[in-house]
């Protein structure tokens, strides 16, 4: 991949800040409850029961996790398939978010399934009629593809830089040569993985929507619709760029960098049409199935639906149409955060709020342990992001393209 428009560098910054300290505390708290789950079973840590088999972990860690990692495939499509090179500098941070996000999703599944030691079963035991099987296999392959897409960043970091400690230093040359071979091979074949990543994403983003269809009448009519897969796909595509903006501005602030507003504004201008398409299908579906009648009564479902659509789609849609919002980092961040929050609420609604079993002996509200594990995993994810951008060339510094260019001529290709 050419580096004409972006030259990612290692971010130099103090690792431990008060914010990082808080994250470490949250992570440790999550890990304690996670141990409880593995030593004493799901019942010890969660409020899940026979009426509500899926809870916060599936709704947030898995469903929302997959959706919010959509920045990876949407920016890959923009940067590589549509070949808009000016966006290359956001491809890597988005790729890293997607890679970590999907790792977190896979780990979330591992934690949630009762028989975690059989997590590899779907690889050899296939059930073609199961939407979950489709999601599982696609996520597994896509996670592998994401790691492969990340490999060039690793080779770029270490080519000409291999410095193994002690007696392993004899291996420096062979390892360097291996990395160069890998790098050359990858740069020739990367297009296969990039397209595969996009196809796999569209497949499982939509199949995630098919998941709840089988629940039939057990799901509230405001959400239960045969076009659920399409709504999931459209919302995933719409949340991709907002997530990139959200994460980019957050990272810039955390590292004391200037946000890349010239790119982020352009990215922001594409969000309104994408959100518009999603909204059109969502509202259209509502009118075709006449489910708006359920909005006339005030209950958890109607309130959550209204919040999801108003706060998560309509308000940010209006915001992204305004040039003022696109130019201001603060407003852009707010609008992007609303979309992210909206999709998060949508997935929670679909998997938890909408699920209303006929015999509800105990209602479900996530336990403290469930919140702890989810928040702990997110904290670990952010910490890993920090460690990686400080040790691998992921983020491009503004206005340093020219100088950095020469630094990487060391790379064997192109």
């Amino acid at each position, binding site marked *: 991949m050419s580096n004409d428009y972006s030259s990612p560098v290692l971010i130099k910054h103090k690792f431990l800040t008060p914010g990082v300290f808080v994250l470490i505390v949250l992570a440790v708290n999550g890990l304690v409850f996670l141990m409880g789950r593995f030593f004493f079973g799901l019942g010890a840590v969660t409020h899940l029961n026979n009426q509500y088999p899926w809870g916060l972990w599936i709704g947030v860690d898995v469903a929302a996790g997959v959706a919010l990692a959509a920045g990876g495939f949407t920016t890959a499509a923009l940067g590589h398939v549509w070949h808009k090179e000016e966006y290359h500098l956001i491809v890597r941070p988005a790729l890293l978010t997607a890679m970590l996000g999907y790792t977190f999703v896979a780990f979330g599944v591992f934690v949630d399934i009762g028989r975690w030691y059989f997590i590899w079963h779907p690889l050899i*035991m296939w059930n073609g009629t*199961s939407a979950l099987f*489709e999601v*599982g296999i696609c996520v597994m392959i896509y996670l592998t593809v994401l790691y492969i897409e990340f490999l060039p960043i690793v080779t770029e970091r270490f080519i000409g830089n291999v410095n193994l400690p002690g007696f392993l230093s004899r291996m420096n040359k062979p390892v360097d040569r291996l990395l160069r071979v890998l790098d050359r091979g990858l740069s020739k074949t990367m297009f296969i993985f990039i397209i595969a990543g996009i196809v796999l994403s569209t497949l499982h983003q939509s199949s995630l929507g098919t*998941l709840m269809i*089988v629940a039939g009448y057990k799901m509230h009519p405001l959400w239960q619709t045969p076009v659920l*897969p399409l709504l999931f796909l459209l919302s995933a595509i719409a949340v991709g760029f907002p997530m990139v903006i959200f994460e980019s501005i957050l990272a810039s602030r955390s590292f004391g960098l200037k946000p890349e507003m010239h790119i982020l504004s352009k990215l922001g201008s594409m969000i309104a049409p994408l959100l518009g398409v999603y909204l059109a299908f969502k509202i259209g579906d509502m009118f075709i199935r006449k489910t708006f009648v359920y909005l006339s009564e005030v209950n958890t479902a109607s309130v959550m639906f209204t919040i999801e659509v108003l706060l998560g789609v309509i308000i940010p849609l209006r915001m992204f149409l305004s040039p003022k919002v696109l130019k201001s980092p603060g407003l852009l961040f707010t609008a992007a955060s609303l979309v992210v929050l909206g999709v998060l609420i949508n997935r929670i609604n679909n998997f938890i709020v909408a699920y209303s079993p*006929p015999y509800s002996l105990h209602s479900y509200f996530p336990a403290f342990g469930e919140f702890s594990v989810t928040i702990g995993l997110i904290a670990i994810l952010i910490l890993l992001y920090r460690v990686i951008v400080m040790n691998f060339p992921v983020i491009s510094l503004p206005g340093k393209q020219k100088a950095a260019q020469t630094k990487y001529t060391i790379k064997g290709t192109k």
Partner: protein
Amino acid sequence: MSGSSRRDFLKTSALIGAGITGLSISSAKAAPKNILSENRMGVLVDTTVCIGCRQCEWACKEAHDLPAGNIASYENREVFYNMRRPSENALTVVNQYSAGKGSDLPVDVKVQCMHCDHPACVSACIVGALSKEENGSVIWDTDKCIGCRYCMVACPFQIPAFQYNKALDPKIMKCDFCFERTKEGKLPACVEICPVEALTYGPRTELISIAKDRIKRDPDRYIDHIYGEKEAGGTAWMYLGNQEFAKLDFPEPGDKPAVGVSESIQHGIFAYFVPPVSLYALLGGIMWINKHRKSSDEEEK
């Protein structure tokens, strides 16, 4: 992009296409067992006959190695104050309801897995751990299950239960229609113990005609509805009653199998892998055109 890599591109794309098509053929073989035999068995539950003695609950636990306790303790009728549901500790339970037409006696309803003809759980299970067997039973395979609990999400009758309090080897617990017992020619434990013959075990088609016959012979005793004949596409366990089944807390899942919509969507997206492969080709084409345009622009410069 150079000429050789363009050829590479086409070659690899073709290879991937071929690979995926191969995959779809093997996946057809890997589907779980889902047999709808002509002679599948069923049970007809006559709720107007059941006396709520709950001996079936005891027999079921005994047959499935669950702690059953003393059979005399099942005479305690205080349990009827609250609705109970099958759980990981009891695969079948009896609930009591107020009297229906033609009788002053309370109505007792035994609840267990309905053993659907088109089971949502079998369709949904990620690894095919659930299967519909030739004798009509829907059973669970401990060697396959990963404990994802999607079957519980899918079940229209809210039946499968999960052992949440086991760290290792937690199981999905549900009525297995006494698969092991019937294989040996024995009756299901609940049918065998029932002192009033409220449960009739037999081929499903015969049970339907028996049920219709009973309704015809005694129209004052029964309402004209066999619950399970059509519900959720038909179930192996069917019920007769003297009042609307909704009043007896039966769900109304409709007559179509729960699996219909989701399977047709799933098959639509994956129709012989044509949509994903076409999307792959399309994206590849767009990528190639954009790259080509860029490089020819540069040449002109």
